[in-house]
């Protein structure tokens, strides 16, 4: 071990933190999900909510509590009698007649002192005409039950430039709802995938292989023998197997069973759990460590073309380009090793030693990876990228509304996801029928006719259409408190994922049916 390493251990194990401050204590339960990096992304975000409806304030509540930096409610409406009855962020009867945005900002602000809230009582139409740059200055824009014409203008504006903020379109009536996130591109390093990276037992790095071969199992006392980590047992057993099988791995079912038996036969005492673990984990020997197909697919992403790279500011694609080169150049053609070793039956010494081997090798591979980087990237980001290299995600989106113009896609969706597609179409029909005059109460027949015109006259609507149409006709103006709260949670959750660039946001239209209580995603 080099002196550098021992110093690392010294600092890593002796740096004593003092008790957490008030802010850390307040956010403790969420920091465990998105850590300080996610929190700081939230704190520098600015969110625009178009309308101060019950749904909008529910969404905001779930963003103000975890601590976004700023929010603005854009709403020129005055609080109506019905608003005062269904919105928790109004002072009931006392708010009637006052500005809906101002009343809501006041009460939402009480939830978290560190969040800045603003009410804006201009109309969206006037801003779209005169100050579109005001809208594009936000981190993300959310619109609930926005008039069809204005929504089209807004989505067109925000689609104009890939740098403009994502738009979340939220629609609801009664028990039914859907929402969609419009964005050009969304890259994720910390996807929090539940798949763990390979331990490379099938392709052991030299230090691991040497370590496994250097141990003399038969000279150990029984305590020592019962604490050899399974990783070492498997590397050793696989080397032995290859020696006696002309260098090939256990291939057939019979061979694999034989290999497992061989592992168990190494036991000197029946209760050696480490050998039982090795048997359970034996599949790692014949699961080839290679670049996962999802990651290989990213290597042909157009953003990696030379022309694109020259102008690309995003460190993500520079890191991805380096990763591609790394996997092509390194002799194992694998992703760089990560140093996370799962817990296993072992004594402290053996485990820590193994952990050091992984750590040292991971650091070496990380340095090689870094040498392929063409632009300087922050070390913490490089670390995180390498750690998550097996689970990177790149999402590319479409503008709002293209699904409803694609008759083939709608037809396909009607046959595979009839219930969800019908709910989506019924909400689209409602929005079209109320364009320009939101007080229109459409009949079931007019909704059906509108849906038919969207999907085209040759597409037959499934039986599920009646359920969706009937519910929309029953309550076209109804914003139920529970539906608003449900959407408030869902939309905030997806907005948090967009802002923090952690976890994976929903692709397509997320449709919600609160009669059967189910959700589904269509039009991805």
């Amino acid at each position, binding site marked *: 071990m080099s002196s550098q390493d021992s110093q690392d251990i010294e600092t890593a194990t002796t740096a004593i933190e003092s008790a957490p401050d008030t802010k850390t204590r307040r956010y403790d339960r969420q920091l465990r999900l998105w850590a300080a990096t996610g929190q700081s992304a939230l704190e520098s975000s600015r969110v625009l909510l178009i309308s101060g409806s019950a749904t909008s304030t529910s969404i905001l509540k779930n963003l103000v509590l*975890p601590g976004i930096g700023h929010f603005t409610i854009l709403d020129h409406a005055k609080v109506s009698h019905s608003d005062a009855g269904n919105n928790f962020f109004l002072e009931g009867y006392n708010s009637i007649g006052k500005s809906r945005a101002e009343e809501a900002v006041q009460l939402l602000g009480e939830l978290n002192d560190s969040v800045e809230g603003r009410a804006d009582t201009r109309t969206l139409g006037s801003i779209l005409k005169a100050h579109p740059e005001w809208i594009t200055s936000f981190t993300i824009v959310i619109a609930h039950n926005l008039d069809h014409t204005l929504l089209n203008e807004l989505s067109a504006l925000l689609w104009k430039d890939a740098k403009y903020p994502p738009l979340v379109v939220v629609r609801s009536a009664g028990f039914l709802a859907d929402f969609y996130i419009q964005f050009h591109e969304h890259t994720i390093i910390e996807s929090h995938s539940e798949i763990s990276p390979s331990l490379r037992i099938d392709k052991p790095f030299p230090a691991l292989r040497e370590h496994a071969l250097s141990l003399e199992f038969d000279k150990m006392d029984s305590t020592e023998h019962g604490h050899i980590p399974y990783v070492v047992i498997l590397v050793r057993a696989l080397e032995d197997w290859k020696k006696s099988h002309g260098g090939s791995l256990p291939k057939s079912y019979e061979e694999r069973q034989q290999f497992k038996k061989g592992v168990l036969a190494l036991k000197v005492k029946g209760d050696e759990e480490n050998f039982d673990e090795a048997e359970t984990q034996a599949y790692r020997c014949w699961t080839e460590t290679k670049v996962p197909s999802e990651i290989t697919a990213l290597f042909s992403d157009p953003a990696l073309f030379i022309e694109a790279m020259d102008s690309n500011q995003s460190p993500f694609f520079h890191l991805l380009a380096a990763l591609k080169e790394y996997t092509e150049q390194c002799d194992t053609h694998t992703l760089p090793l990560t140093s996370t070793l799962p817990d296993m039956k072992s004594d402290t010494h053996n485990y820590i030693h193994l952990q050091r081997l992984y750590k040292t090798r991971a650091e070496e591979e990380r340095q090689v990876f870094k040498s392929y980087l063409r632009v300087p990237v922050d070390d913490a980001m490089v670390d995180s990228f390498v750690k998550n290299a097996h689970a990177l995600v790149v999402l590319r989106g479409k503008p709002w509304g293209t699904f409803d113009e694609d008759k083939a896609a709608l037809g396909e969706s009607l046959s595979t996801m009839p219930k969800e597609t019908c709910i989506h179409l019924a909400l689209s029909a409602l929005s079209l029928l109320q364009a320009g005059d939101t007080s229109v109460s459409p009949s079931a027949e007019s909704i059906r006719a509108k849906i038919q015109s969207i999907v085209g006259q040759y597409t037959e609507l499934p039986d599920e259409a009646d359920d969706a149409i009937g519910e929309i006709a029953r309550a076209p103006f109804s914003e139920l408190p529970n539906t608003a709260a449900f959407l408030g949670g869902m939309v905030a959750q997806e907005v948090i994922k967009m802002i923090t660039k952690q976890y994976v946001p929903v692709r397509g239209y997320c449709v919600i049916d609160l009669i059967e209580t189910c959700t589904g995603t269509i039009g991805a």
Partner: protein
Amino acid sequence: MATEINVNGAATSSDWQDRYYHVDQILDRPGPRTDPSFLAGDEVKDFLRNKCKILVIGAGGLGCEILANLALTGFKDIHLIDMDTIDISNLNRQFLFRPADVGRPKAIVAAEYVMKRVPGVQVTPYYGKIQDKGDDYYLQFNLVICGLDSVEARRWINATLVNLVDPENPESLKPLIDGGTEGFKGQARVILPTVSSCYECSLDMLNKPTTFPICTIANTPRLPEHCIEWASVLEWPRARGDEKLDTDDPEHIGWLYSIAVARAKEFKIEGVTWSLTQGVVKNVIPAIASTNAIIAASCCNEAFKIATSSAAYLNNYFMLIGTEGVYSYTFEHEKRDHCPVCGGEALEMPISRDWTVEQLIELLTEKQNIQIKKPSLATPGKPIYFQQPPQLEEATRPNLEKKVLELVPDGGEVVVTASTLPFSLSLIITYI
């Protein structure tokens, strides 16, 4: 002669025209999937706003949301039970509480806040345990909603409501709506005691809690968690004697943390932090406002549909995973024949002829579909081992080392009870 019905609830100055405009659109007419028994209009509004009495258990992350939703939906007689006080770490999601409320009882503060914000709603808080209340108390409600973080409490209320059912009296069946969350995941379910699958039926769906074997902690620590457990399980009682470990006391956590760090240093183990120390000793579960909002809304929506019959209700389990996209799964969880609460059939338990009573007890503690902490065992005639009271524990303790075979014949019955659970489990022991 028809009595006049006040559709806006108890006549108070706080009611105003169109207050329930949004909800009334649902209550004034049926939808295509509404049950024909739905009586649209004034009668259903009168029931919801003047007659329906609902109990909310838990005033935490889910409870705060549940209260606000119920109040806005038109429930006016809400009772609330919670035994906790407000901690600063609650404020990232429990939106009825402010920093100045830290230390006060959650039930009291939540009730005050909702009554202030939604006029005309009566919230009756009880700051205490659900176990303090008896059958008569629970019989007064039409519905029960749970937003709890404890498995024990859920098992208790579930068993209590199942036991409450009297086949002669339909009123005795109290629908139980249960929500739970962890990070981006959650579930909501509707339980019709004795009719549908109950909480106990699905016990095997719970994740196994992480436990660390004591020998690993003492002899072969590998993870930072092992060092922390060493500090809290072994070093605390050794160094601090009878002093009770208070996981909310920063001095106590700080002490454990420094001991754990020293241990980690000795073994060259990295990663002991304050946050991890607190996480391990308090068994902290990540929690955010958004997941709680989704699950609470879903629970309240079921309560609304059940109370009004305005739409079909959830049959019977909604599961949500929000980490990758929005994934949810709605399904009917089926009753378990051997469910000790609602099943009626005894559970067959094949064990080895060599097993001691102690081994059987260990199995009952660990087995996924049983999970009884500190079980007491008896044959129909005679105690085998009792955890309580101390005299009986002492008298039965020698049996722990005896073989089960010496005390129970092949095919014999063993009745298992625990002080935390209001039911007994019947086992048929067979030997293999």
